[in-house]
Structures are given as C-alpha cells and as structure tokens.
C-alpha cells in the first residue's frame, strides 16, 4: 500500500489516498460487460414486446406456434373463443349462473350435426331454452354474425372438441352454406324454431 500522497487540497477535512489506478479492475469490468452482453443477447428477445420468459427470442416463440392443420385451427378457435365467447361462457366452458349456460356437455353443442348450433351465433337467440336439463330464459345477440367463415368454423370446432366435448369439426364451407341458407332471416331464433330445423 502506498503512503498518502500530499496532493490533497488544503482545507479538506479528510484525505483520500491518491495512488494510481490498478489495471485489473478495468480488465474485470470489461470481461464482465462482455459476458453480460452475451447473456443479454441470448435471453432478452431484443426488446420484442411479445417475447416473455422463458422464451428467448421471437424465432424461438415462432417455433412453438402451430403451423397448419388441426393444431392451427384449435389455436385459432381458442383465440376467437377467448375474445368473443369466453367472457360470458367462461374460459372453462362452464358458463356463468344467471348469465350464460355451460357449453361443456351441452346437448346443443355436442349434437351429431352442427346446423342448429351454427344458427345461434349467426342470428342470436331469445326466450326459453333448456340446456342439459336446466331451463334458461335469456337473450344472446348475434355474436358470430361479424366473424369470418373461417373464424366461426374454428370457434365452433373449438367448443365442440374442448372441455370433454367430443363432437365433429365444422368447416368454413359448412358455415358458408349455412350463411347462404339464411336468406333474409335476421331475427334471433327461439328454442322451438331451432328444434324445428334439421340437426
């Protein structure tokens, strides 16, 4: 340790040793800064607002996204469901008391055909309806009327195949045909009207 240098300005109450700066401290800092930059490069996703831990970057996130086929349709259906339907029917498909009936296990959802089911989001529904043995008296607006054929098909497929439901899928062409068959009919359906249709 070097002796205190006499270079401290007069008038200071205390003095500090003014010996020269050691080199190792810069080497250590720069090494750590380099390692830190490598760490940041590997984990930060470079400020991408969609990349969350544990994913490291946008490419990694992309590699986990479904590319095509059933998985892609399921992801699309799920997205539409959570945006449009889930608020009332619940992310778990169990509905909400006094607000919306359950979709899980509902005979309207898991029917062999999807004709009646598709009319509900396209036109809305009003009045008495029985779901899984329980009576409801509520209205639902035509929540699906503004969705594209592909989105509506995906979301119907999603509710028909989720939460234990095991019914067949709905294609965009099915929806296109049903939409064409509506003609000028735009009023909400009643339970009786639905039952009068083919499944």
């Amino acid at each position, binding site marked *: *340790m070097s002796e*205190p240098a*006499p270079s*401290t*300005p*007069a*008038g*200071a*109450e*205390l*003095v*500090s*040793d*003014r*010996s*020269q*700066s050691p080199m190792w*401290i810069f080497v*250590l*800092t720069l090494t*750590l*800064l380099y390692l*830190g930059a490598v*760490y*940041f490069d590997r*984990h*930060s*996703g*470079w*400020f*991408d*607002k*969609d*990349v*969350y*831990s544990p*994913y*490291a970057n946008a490419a990694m996130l992309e590699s986990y996204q479904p590319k095509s086929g059933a998985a892609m349709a399921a992801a699309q259906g799920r997205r539409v469901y959570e945006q449009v339907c889930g608020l009332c029917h619940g992310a778990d498909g169990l509905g909400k008391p006094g607000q919306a009936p359950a979709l899980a296990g509902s005979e309207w959802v898991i029917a062999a055909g999807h004709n009646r089911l598709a009319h509900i989001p396209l036109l809305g529904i009003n009045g008495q309806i029985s779901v899984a043995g329980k009576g409801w008296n509520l209205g639902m607006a035509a929540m699906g009327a503004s969705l594209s054929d592909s989105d509506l098909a995906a979301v119907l497929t999603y509710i028909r195949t989720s939460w234990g439901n095991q019914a067949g899928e709905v294609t965009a062409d099915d929806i296109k045909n049903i939409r064409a068959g509506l003609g000028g009919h735009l009023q909400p359906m009643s339970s009786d009207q639905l039952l009068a249709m083919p499944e």
Partner: protein
Amino acid sequence: MTVNDKLDNKFGGASVPASQLDSSFAPPVDASCRVPLLVLFGGAALWLVVSSLLALAASLTFHMPDKFGDCSWGTYGHLQPAADDALLYGFCIPAGLGVALWIFARLGRTPLRGALVPVVAAHLWHLGVLVGLVGIFVGDSTGFAWLEFPRGGSALLFFAYLLIGLWALMNFSGRPAGAMFPSHWFLVAALFLFPWIYSTANILIVGWPVRGVVQAVIAWWFGNNLIFLWTSLVGLGAAFYFLPKFSGRPLQTYFYALFAFWTLFFFGSLRGVPSGAPVPAWLPTLGNLNSMLLIVPVIVIAIIGWKTVVGAAGPEGKDSSYSMIRFGFVAFVLSALLQVAMSCPQFARLTQFTWFGVAQTQLQLYGFFAITMFGAIHYILPRAVGIEFAFPKLIRVQQGCAMLGLIILVASLAAGGVAQGLKLNDPNVAFADSSKAMLMFLRASTTGLLLLLLASLLFALNIFAMIMAWHWSLVRAVFAAVVAPLPKTEVKA
C-alpha cells in the same frame, strides 16, 4: 476544554495530515447544524420506535392470526406496510438527510446558514410521514409497495426533501475551493436521486396512472432505486467519511471510490424488475444483467473498506460508532452479494415468492443503513449539541440488541425462505404445507424483532434525553440572563 475538544481528541484527528490538524472550524460548524439535526434525528427516533412496534405486531399476526383481526387497521395488510414505510420514510431518510447536512458542513468547513429552513422542512417531513401512516391505517394506501402513502403525505415529503436538499446543496456549493471528498459524490447523487424517482413514481402511478403492466415496472424501478441505490449512496457516503476518520488511515483509495461510485450508480439504477416477472423478457433480463454487474462495485467497495480499516490503529478503546459503521459496511457487502445471487435465474427460481427477498431488504435497510446511521448519529449529536449522551453505557446495549436482533431476523427469514422455496418447487408438496414450513422461522424472526424494538427504544431514550437536556439548557440560559446582576454601568445610570 469543551465537549467537542474532548471528543475530537479521543480520535486524535489521526486521519488528517499534521498540516491540517487545525480543527478550530469544527465547533461553530457543528453548532450551526444543531437545531435541524435535533429535529431530524428526534423525529427519526420516534418513527423508529413506531416502526419496530408495528413490525412486531405484524409478525405476531402469523402466530396469533385472530389477535388484532377484529379491527381492519390491525390486519397484516395495514401493519406491515406501515412498519416498512415508518422505517424507510420515518427513520432512514431523515436520518440520512441529517447526516448528509452535517457531513457537508464539516467537510466544507462551512457553517450551515439559514438553519430555520431545514428546521421547518424537517417538521414538514415528519408531518408528511404522520399523514401517510394515518392514511395507510384508514385504508387510503395506494397499494404499491414503498409508495403506500396517499397523495397528501407524499406531497409533503417531496417538498420537505426539496427544501432540505436545497439547503444541503447551498452549503456544499459554499465550501472553499478544492474541498472535495469521495463522500461528497455519493451524498450529492443521493440528494438529486430522491426527488427524481419519487416524483416520477408518484406522478406515473398515483397521480395520473399509466396503463397496465407499466405501473408494476415503474413500481419495481422506484423500489430498487430507493431501497437499494439511495440507501447505498447515503450509507456509503457516510461510511467513507467515518471509516477513515476512525481508523486513522486515508480513504483507500480516491480512485477506487471514484470507480465504485460510477459503477454503483450506473448498474444500481437500471435494476429492479425481478427475475421471474411476467413482463416482456428484456425487462427482467436487463435487471438481472445489471444486478450481476453489481459484483464490480461490491468488490471495489469491499476492498476500500478492507484497506482503510483492517490493521489500522483505530480510536483508543472500543468505540461504539466505529463498531456500528463497520458492521453496517459488512452488511452492505452481504446485502449486495445477495442481490447478485438473486439475479441468477437458477437461484431466483428457488427464492422467488418466498421470504428470502424480505430478508435481503431488511439486511439492506436495517443491517446496513439504519445501523450505519446509529453509529453516525451517536458520533454527531453530542458534538452538534455540545452535551454528552445521558446514558452512554446504554449505547453499547443498544448496539448489541440491534446487531443481534438483525442477525436473528435476517438469518431466520433467509433460511426459511430457502426451505419454503424448496417445498414450493416440489410438486409433491401442497402449497399450504410449503407456507406452513415458514412458521418456525417466523417465530424466530419475531424474537429478532423483539430485540430490534429494544434497540429502537434505547436509541430513542438517548436521543429524547438529549433533546430534553438541550431544552433545559436553553431554559437555564434564559433564567441566568434574567437573574444576572446588572452591570455596574447600568446601575449608575
């Protein structure tokens, strides 16, 4: 021989070269700070006792959940934030401001002018803390950690700080040319830091809230900058002043201190978002990166302490202030090392959502900052007031209680946090069981808090006794002036 001479001779002014041993400037400088320091430290002592009581009550709610549960203000959610804020805003900041005022005046050899302003501001500050604490208890808390005080209290704190900070800076700028010491950098940076972070956080979270997740990010940034960076700057500024003074060796070295200052400020201010935070990945990554790089200033600061203190002659006999400031210094190094460890994702996965983080915060706030302030205040106050402490032996007891209590508190919470984290990460252990694992450690931590309460009471006893002795000396002086026999010249007339 005055009290100041006696006290200063004890340390022999050994850190100052013989040419600068002239200490005739010290008594007028000390006296100029007297009233602001009495108000700042007196209020701080009061809030310290309040904080210890509240922390103990909050800890008891874990063993006796129904004890205070009948009234809403007695629930954990009111008690714990109130205890935290009373410690931080009630004790730490006014104590730090007082120590900074005094160090500026002493290092600059410039008496504090216009002391009335910091006296009024100190009263405003303590009023702000009172308003804030009452706000928490009546349910007006903002709900953000370390920002719980409602608007009125925060505004008072902000303006009081501005006034005291302004006066400290005016004193600083009035120093003779060339009188600059490493402590100055740390303390000046802290003076500017608080108004910036406090106004930013209050405006963006409480006043005109930004949307969504950004609120949480700002709250983390603010919490880290206040709890870690502000306390580190003030505490280290004080330690770099007192350690050389006591050890009798110049600060080792100017260059290390400069390097530590810039790296601490740069890396320390960019952290806060915890490792597992549910925000875009770059935020926790940036926080982790800067926390890891904290290892640079920590190593340098540890070297400064080691070279300045170890092997130095030190003051004659054992000095309580010296022991406390050394203890605080070691606590800082440990606390900062824990920060570094907690920034490693592997370790963070174990300790997140556990009591480990609380242990680290207590080590920083109490173990490092409060204990450093105890040492500094015990050194400063007798010199500033010109009266010795009424119970000097109790200072040793206070020191023992504070250190032992702190060690028990931090060790039990840290060990408990690790035990809790191991169970939390084990899918075969139910969540309730992982929480129950903490119970034994919490009991131990309550013991620690009991000792800390005792330490607070003893500290406040000496401070309050000094304030009363000062008032009494004023009364005596007035009385003596009144009953003094008239000078002969006036009798003749």
